């Protein structure tokens, strides 16, 4: 990981948070596209994974992201009543309300998880969600606590369970 | 003996004392216990809520809180403006968030907003069955029997619908029902809910005269012999101002409070109903109605006697006929 100096208020030790974002294809992904076409510059710590709808986003994805070393997670989709599939976001809202409260009960700092509604026309809002999430997680520091859960022999390089491609070449 | 917190408001202790007197008389007659709220204060009327919303709610709320503290669950506010302000305050505290929380420290004691608010028409309509029975039971002939009366609601008695809600805001019938209960004939006319000029009575008297004139003309054109009101301001605009708007030689139109009308139907004395306090003298009308009623009753009695006499005569003839029959030629049907 290159220690590129980050100009926007980096933490003392130059820690750069790694954030995975699960976004819905119809609204937030397109909103992020719009942020691109409008050349809205933002922090580069976020990696986007596209899904058809927030209804498809499963809490297992977020737990797995933390297990793979993410310091923060973003979940974003269409505003209520805008869902392309009419009610996917309503189900997601209930699921993530329960998940958010449970994780807080277990002791995970809720500011590591950002939930938002970003429509296809809100490029600027997407940039703000990204910058805010990066700033929050940077302030919280690396999610060492989660990584400490797995002892050395947990086999990180080739995480357990992923099908290892036996490469001839 | 249902006990109701009675909120008179400034006008029933002042310019329209006759409304208060007739209300007390009729309430006693109908078995409704009125207990004036101790230490009641001004309801803010139109000046309160036009200057400041919170003031417009807190002033009437103080009276509701007093009634609640004194153990009542219903407040009777006969004056249309007081009724409107008290109901509006009750609705605002129940619906606008943030208001209910402010009340305890403004009023100085807790307030659960549990008190219901009614006006005089609502009370009399709900008691219309008792009124009908009592009118029938009154010995003295009912002076209002078949008399054409026009029910004038004005604007504050039935509107806005969310605040009043006990009658149709555009085509109200509650006062008409009370008129029917008194045996009178409620007139179907067009100005039931038209404005009488209200508080402009002093600042723009010319307009009030024009509006009042239109109301009285319309009532008269539909044959009304008197207009029934339930609001001190409507009463003063139509009664006090009537001389100024009347043309030469025009028959005056007496303006009665709904409670005075019920009192007359129940045979109470006009002086107990404050009927002597009006600008348009009510005495000639009442005298004529009483005389008319007496004549009518007398005529009915007479008709009854004649009918009885004729029946007796016919019965007599029949007996004679039967007697002749038995001694007659073909005694076939002899029993």
């Amino acid at each position: 990981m290159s220690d590129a100096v980050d100009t926007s208020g980096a933490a003392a030790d130059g820690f750069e948070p790694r954030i995975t974002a699960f976004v819905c294809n119809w609204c937030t992904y397109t909103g992020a596209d719009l942020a691109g076409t409008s050349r809205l510059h933002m922090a580069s710590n976020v990696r986007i994974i596209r899904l058809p709808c927030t209804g498809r986003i499963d809490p297992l994805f977020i737990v797995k992201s933390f297990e793979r070393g993410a310091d923060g997670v973003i979940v974003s989709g269409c505003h209520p009543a805008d869902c392309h599939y009419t009610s996917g976001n309503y189900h997601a809202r209930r699921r993530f309300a329960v998940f958010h409260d449970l994780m807080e009960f277990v002791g995970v700092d809720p500011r590591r998880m950002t939930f938002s509604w970003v429509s296809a026309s809100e490029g600027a809002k997407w940039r703000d969600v990204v910058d805010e999430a990066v700033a929050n997680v940077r302030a919280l520091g690396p999610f060492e606590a989660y990584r400490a859960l797995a002892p050395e022999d947990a086999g990180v390089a080739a995480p357990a369970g992923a099908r290892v491609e036996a490469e001839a070449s | 003996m249902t006990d109701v917190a009675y909120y008179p408001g400034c006008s029933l202790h002042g310019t329209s004392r006759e409304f208060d007197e007739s209300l007390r008389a009729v309430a006693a007659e109908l078995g409704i216990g009125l207990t004036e709220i101790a230490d009641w204060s001004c309801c803010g009327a139109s000046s309160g809520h036009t200057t400041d919303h919170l003031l417009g709610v807190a002033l009437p709320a103080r009276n509701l809180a007093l009634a609640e503290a004194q153990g009542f669950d219903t407040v009777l506010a006969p004056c249309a403006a007081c009724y409107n302000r008290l109901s509006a305050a009750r609705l605002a505290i129940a619906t606008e968030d943030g208001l209910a929380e402010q009340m305890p420290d403004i009023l100085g004691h807790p307030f659960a907003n549990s008190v219901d608010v009614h006006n005089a028409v609502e009370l009399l309509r709900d008691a219309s069955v008792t009124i009908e029975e009592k009118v029938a039971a009154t010995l003295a002939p009912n002076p209002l029997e078949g008399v054409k009366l026009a029910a004038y609601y004005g604007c504050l008695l039935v509107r806005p619908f969310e605040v009043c809600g006990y009658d149709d805001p555009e085509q109200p019938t509650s006062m008409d029902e009370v008129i029917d209960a008194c045996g009178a004939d409620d007139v179907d006319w067009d100005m039931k809910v038209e404005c009488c000029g209200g508080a402009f009575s002093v600042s723009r008297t010319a307009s009030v005269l024009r509006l009042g004139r239109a109301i009285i003309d319309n009532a008269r054109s539909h044959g009304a012999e008197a207009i029934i009101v339930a609001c001190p301001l409507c009463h003063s605009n139509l009664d006090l101002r009537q001389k100024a708007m009347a043309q030469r030689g025009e028959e005056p139109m007496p303006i009665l409070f709904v409670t005075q009308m019920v009192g007359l139907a129940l045979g109470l004395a006009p002086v107990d109903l404050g009927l002597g306090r009006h600008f348009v003298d009510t005495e000639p009308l009442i005298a004529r109605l009483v005389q008319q009623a007496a004549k009518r009753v007398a005529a009915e009695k007479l008709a009854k006697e004649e009918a009885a006499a004729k029946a007796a005569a016919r019965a007599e003839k029949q007996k004679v006929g039967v007697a002749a029959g038995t001694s007659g030629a073909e005694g076939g049907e002899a029993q």
Partner: protein
Amino acid sequence: MSEVREVARKLLTDGTVRVIVGWEDARRGARPVFVTDPADTERLIFDTRCVHNLVTYLNPRRDNVAELGKIGLVVKGCDAKAVAGLLREAQLTRDDVVLIGVRCGGVLEEAELPKAASLSPENVAPRCYGCDNREPELVDHLLGESQPEPPRPVMTIDERVAALDAQPLEERWAFWTEQFSKCVRCYACRQVCPLCVCERCVAEKSRPQWIEAPPHPRGNLSWNITRALHLAGRCVDCGECERFCPVGIPLSLVNRKLQHIVAERYGYTVSDDPESPAPIGDYRLDDKQEFIK
């Protein structure tokens, strides 16, 4: 509990059911019993030692019980809620089972006693305090006199949850990661739960393996988070998972927290009415979203 025996005998003799699942006295505490012969109904008892949730025997995965024929099940209030859970998710139809409800006054926490002890703040099962279904409605018969309220335990589960809630995040994280690190992934909590009805649990799914199989704290955390989420709005608080956990993880705290979340956010309390829709899978336009930007 003579009434249970009478009803059981009648049901067996007139053939309404082929087996009665209830409790019988054992050397140390009560234990489940499967009575098929009317004469054996004498062995049936019901007292403060009957803590087991027998509804787990209605679980479709246990077809060996189903093969015995139509079941007559003795159910306490919490058990009846579990039956409603199975009905809600079409694992059972109402006339598959005859439910013999018993009026319950709470059960013991440590039930392995030779004789039923009367309940006291020290020995009552904490979950019984404040129970809202002591006389279940989802039953064909409701037996026994109405019992007094169970005594308030020394420390209620709500108090323990509130204590945890009051702690700062780091302390709660330390508490739970330490508890979950004890987990040996024996999955007893899953086997005993009447509502864990999946043919193949997601924990056993390998392509992809969402939940890491090895029992290190990271894998255990993701297993317990998933188990908890699967019980949101479904768990009837029968306490079996905690009672069976060999390493003593306080699972009832997690279950109770989930019940609070679902109650505060959606006003939903788990009941024995199969018609009331589960909260997850339902939605209202005005659901709270204060945590969403």
